[in-house]
């Protein structure tokens, strides 16, 4: 579904990703872990098409399409969704209006009819209840005055309504209390389908207690230095990133050799 090959990208002239390789199949949940500054969020933002990030080298294919050639809205319409690390407050734009406009843009792309207000309301109702989201939140401007937890839950709520094929969660778990974390995890688990994939970008292993990944990748200094199954997360939790220090040193030291090109690929 998603194939990332030798991706180099950065922001403001600074290279952050320095050759990322990653392959995700439908139905899989992948976790990207790594210390601060390793490039986790950059990877998420590049995949979503943030205009401030520029790709200098490499390729990203989504269902065989060149994802990097698509503008952000085309990616969304193709089924890519990113839950923002810092959801943006948009005063004056009503949350429900925004979400309905987004959903109808996706539906139009798929050749489906637009939902009217009634249909939209009944569609969102169940999902709000499941995520413990207050009706009032829909009537408020997008993210304005929301607590940290409310913002993150709103992202998951949007994901539940927009039903993407690939959902990228950029540190959605950061700053959440345990109840909110469980809510978010439940929201993700409830959406797991054979045709849908998740990429969880996280700083902490904690989230993976509630969402069991198929693969865990460790990102350091812009490269994936280790990939493995869910047990890799536990190992990291136990031993810390220092455990991977030799690999870190190597990643930091020189250009990627040809072997490492396959490291990020599951099942290679």
């Amino acid at each position: 579904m998603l194939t990332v090959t030798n991706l180099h990208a950065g922001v403001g002239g600074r290279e952050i990703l320095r050759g990322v390789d990653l392959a995700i199949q439908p139905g899989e949940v992948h976790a990207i872990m790594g210390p601060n500054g390793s490039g986790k969020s950059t990877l998420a933002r590049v995949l979503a098409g943030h205009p401030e990030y520029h790709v200098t080298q490499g390729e990203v294919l989504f269902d065989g399409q060149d994802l990097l050639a698509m503008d952000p809205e085309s990616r969304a319409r193709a089924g890519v969704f990113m839950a923002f690390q810092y959801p943006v407050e948009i005063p004056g734009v009503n949350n429900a209006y925004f979400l309905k406009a987004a959903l109808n843009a996706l539906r139009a792309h798929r050749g489906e009819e637009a939902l009217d207000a009634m249909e939209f309301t009944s569609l969102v109702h169940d999902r709000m209840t499941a995520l413990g989201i207050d009706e009032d939140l829909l009537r408020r401007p997008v993210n304005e005055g929301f607590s940290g937890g409310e913002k993150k839950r709103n992202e998951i709520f949007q994901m539940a309504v927009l039903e993407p094929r690939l959902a990228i969660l950029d540190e959605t778990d950061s700053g959440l209390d345990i109840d909110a974390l469980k809510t978010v995890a439940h929201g993700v688990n409830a959406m797991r389908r054979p045709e849908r994939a998740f990429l969880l970008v996280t700083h902490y292993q904690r989230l993976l207690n509630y969402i069991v990944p198929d693969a865990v990748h460790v990102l350091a200094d812009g490269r994936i230095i280790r990939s493995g199954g869910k047990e890799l997360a536990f190992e990291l939790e136990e031993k810390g990133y220092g455990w991977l220090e030799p690999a870190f040193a190597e990643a930091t030291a020189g250009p990627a050799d040809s072997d490492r090109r396959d490291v990020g690929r599951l099942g290679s």
Partner: protein
Amino acid sequence: MAQSLDHYVAEWKRVGRRGPESLVRMREDALHRFLSRGFPTTGEEEWRFTSVAPIAERAFALSPSPVTDATALDVAALRLPGAVAELVFVNGCYAPSLSRLVALPAGVRVANVAPTPSDRPIGLLDRPGNPFVALNTAFVDEVAYIELAAGAVVEQPIHFVFIAEEADGHATMAHPRVLITLGANTQASVIETYAGPAAARYFTNAVSEIALAENAVLNHYKLQYEGRDAYHIATTHVQAERSATYTSSSVNLGGALVRNDLIAVLNGEGVECTLNGLYCADAQRLVDNHTTIDHAQPHCGSREIYKGILADRARGVFNGRIIVRPDAQKTDAKQTNRALLLSEDAQINTTPQLEIFANDVKCTHGAAVGQLDEDALFYLRSRGLSETDARHLLVHAFAADVLNHMPLETIRASVEHRLQRELIGALASAA
């Protein structure tokens, strides 16, 4: 500025001597004031950013054109459903066939009247400072008039429509005059709408005088939808007595060169004054809003928020003057003014002007100029909205809080509709 005022004299000689002697004298005095003052220049502080040379250089003529089916059609688009009275003026002349007057409540008078200098406060504004008011008075012939006797309440809005029509190719001018006097304990909503053809160089020079007695409540709208090539100069002067409430919503979506002077004198204790302003311009158009809130008495509150959306090479000017007189203790004044620039070449000149002579007062002002928030734009697009729709939504959101302060739902909806239409053009050229 080299300017010849001769043709104003010629026009005046043609029409200025109509009516009773006292009226002719009032007009003549005003004409002399205008002639000795001349058009303002950018060398004057009050007109520093706004050159009226395009007006001064053209020979506008009074042109009472006949009301046609086309006029009726244009007016139909401006009508306000639910208005209790709708007076229509075409090129400055009252058009009874297009006007509607339903039975008004007792104590309410809405009419087109002849100016009478003796018993009505016409001429209140004729101070040496503003030549456009003098020019208006020099040509005043009809007055859109509202009078509420003490205690009268009119729930449905009263609508004045000033529409310009093309008159065989020559540049026309009109000098609309509005007079509103609300007695004690009254309440009314009044809308002034200004509109005209899309591609005609005409000149509207409007003057509105508003007197609010004790406890009077006025919701006042000025909706300026002039054609894109029009020149629109307007002066609104409000005098509010004890515990009166004045709420102004000033919307400017039209005009090539627009200047609004809004002066509110809070002349009694406990007056509440709210000024909402919204303007949008593209191309090389200029919108200048000068407001003055004069806190002359204690315990008055004023809230002012003006927002502008500027695209292409459009320019905005905002000058917000707040005077707090020595007696006006416990004044609570808040002024906000924000501009959204959709292009690199769009420009706003904004000047808060606080003159505070009392010591126990609360006065705040804030000005902000910005572009569309790129993070918000990306957020919306990342959910599937097109860039155009995302921009549209954000610009509309910018205007939303001013719109939401407009008390009448029907007007809010029609302003939103027109704003949408303007934004399509402005955003297309900004992209």
